[in-house]
Structure formats: C-alpha cells, structure tokens
C-alpha cells in the first residue's frame, strides 16, 4: 500500500494511542471488577455492574476496533507487511481474538447490569467474578501484543520468505517501525 511518510506516521501514532488506551481501559475494568467483588456497600457494588456495560460500549469496543484498524493500516503501509513476520501475525491474531471475545461478552455485561438493577436480587447474586477473569486475560493478551510490537522478535513466515526471495531484501532505510 502506498502511503506518504506523514500518513504512515499518523497511522502508527493512532495505533499506539488506541492500543495503549485499550490496555488502560482494561486496567480500569479490572479495578472496577475488584470493587464489585469486594465492596461492602450495596450501592457501590451494584453501581459497578451497572456502569460496566455502557462504559464498555463507549470505551472498550471503540478502542478495540480502532486498535485493530490502525494496526492493519500501519502494517500494510510499512515494509513489515501483515503476513510476512510472525510477530505482526501474532499481534493481528491477538487483536482479532480479543475483539471477538469482547463483542461476545457485551451480552454478559447487559445481563449483569439487569441483575444489579433488580432490587430483589441480593448482593451475592449481583457479585460476579467473570469480569475480573476476562479483564485479567485481556490484560495479559494486550501486554503480550505490546511486548511483541516493541521487541519485534525475529522470524519470517514462509510467505514472507517467498516474498523476500522475489523482491530481494528489505532496505532497512525504507523500513518504518510498527507499534
């Protein structure tokens, strides 16, 4: 894909911001999940599960899609490509997997909000360990993706090697780092 260096840098910046923003939002959800599980105050615990669904729609979902789309743009614009290097491929798989699980989990957020909003449900029913588990797993996945983006471990895919044989070597001077 032909992109000017300015657009390439913009796509990379947007990718870094959205990915780190997503990671930060997951940390906040982990904290919320902890408050929901441990708070002795009925209203606080219920409030946590009530606020999770709208917060996820407004923050987690947009950031997940932004991270995925800007990552695709950045990788296609840079000499790294999307399928040439294992680390890029793994980052893509992590983003797709985390986004799909998040979208599936939105229904659960709605369910937990319904339970929290029902005054006849006691606090034991309202409390749920599932958000903490999912947020912890998401945090691990996003940290792994970030580490891959920074360290860029060596390893070309068979497709990348074939491409390299056809086109010759990638000029380091023309290569742009990918977050």
């Amino acid at each position, binding site marked *: 894909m032909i992109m000017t260096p300015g657009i390439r840098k913009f796509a990379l910046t947007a990718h870094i911001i959205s990915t780190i923003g997503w990671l930060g939002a997951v940390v906040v959800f982990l904290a919320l999940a902890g408050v929901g599980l441990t708070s002795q105050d009925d209203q606080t615990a219920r409030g946590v599960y009530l606020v999770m669904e709208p917060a996820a729609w407004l923050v987690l979902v947009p950031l997940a899609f932004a991270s995925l789309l800007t990552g695709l743009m950045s990788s296609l614009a840079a000499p790294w490509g999307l399928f040439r290097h294992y680390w890029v491929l*793994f980052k893509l798989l992590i983003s797709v997997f985390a986004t799909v699980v998040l979208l599936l989990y939105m*229904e*659960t957020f709605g*369910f937990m909000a319904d339970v929290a909003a029902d005054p*006849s449900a006691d606090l034991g029913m309202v409390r749920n360990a599932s958000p903490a588990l999912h947020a912890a797993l998401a945090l691990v996945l996003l940290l792994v993706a970030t580490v891959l983006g920074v360290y860029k471990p*060596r*390893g070309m895919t068979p497709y990348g090697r074939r491409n390299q044989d056809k086109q010759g070597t990638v000029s380091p001077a023309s*290569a742009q780092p990918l977050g």
Partner: protein
Amino acid sequence: MADRPPYPDSDGDTRTPRWVKVFAIIALVLVLLVVIMMFIGDGDHGPGRHRRFGGQTPPSSVMAHGVQQP
C-alpha cells in the same frame, strides 16, 4: 516506538523460531479452551455461560429476559 527491523534474516535460517512454536501452542490451547467453554455453555459465551445463581432463583427481571435455570 522501536528500532529498525533486523530483517531480513542474514543467516539464511529458514527454521521456525522457538518462540513462534511456543506462541502457537499457547494460542491453540487458548482457542480450544474458548471452544470447550462455549460447548459447556450451550454454545453461548454470553449470560448463559456466566450466570452464577447456583441453587438460588434468579430475580424476576432476569427471568423475563429469557435466562434459563441451570
């Protein structure tokens, strides 16, 4: 965010790096776990999967949303 790429592999080594194999195994296990969980939860990774009422009766509003009893 990072330095320039060390690629292409100058040593001509075409073997799959060990870290890739480890990551692939972890990814496979993770995907299998999700699939198994979805099967256990009647193909649903939603509320049905995560309800935790145990032996208790869920609130009426939740029942109204069509959540089945365990």
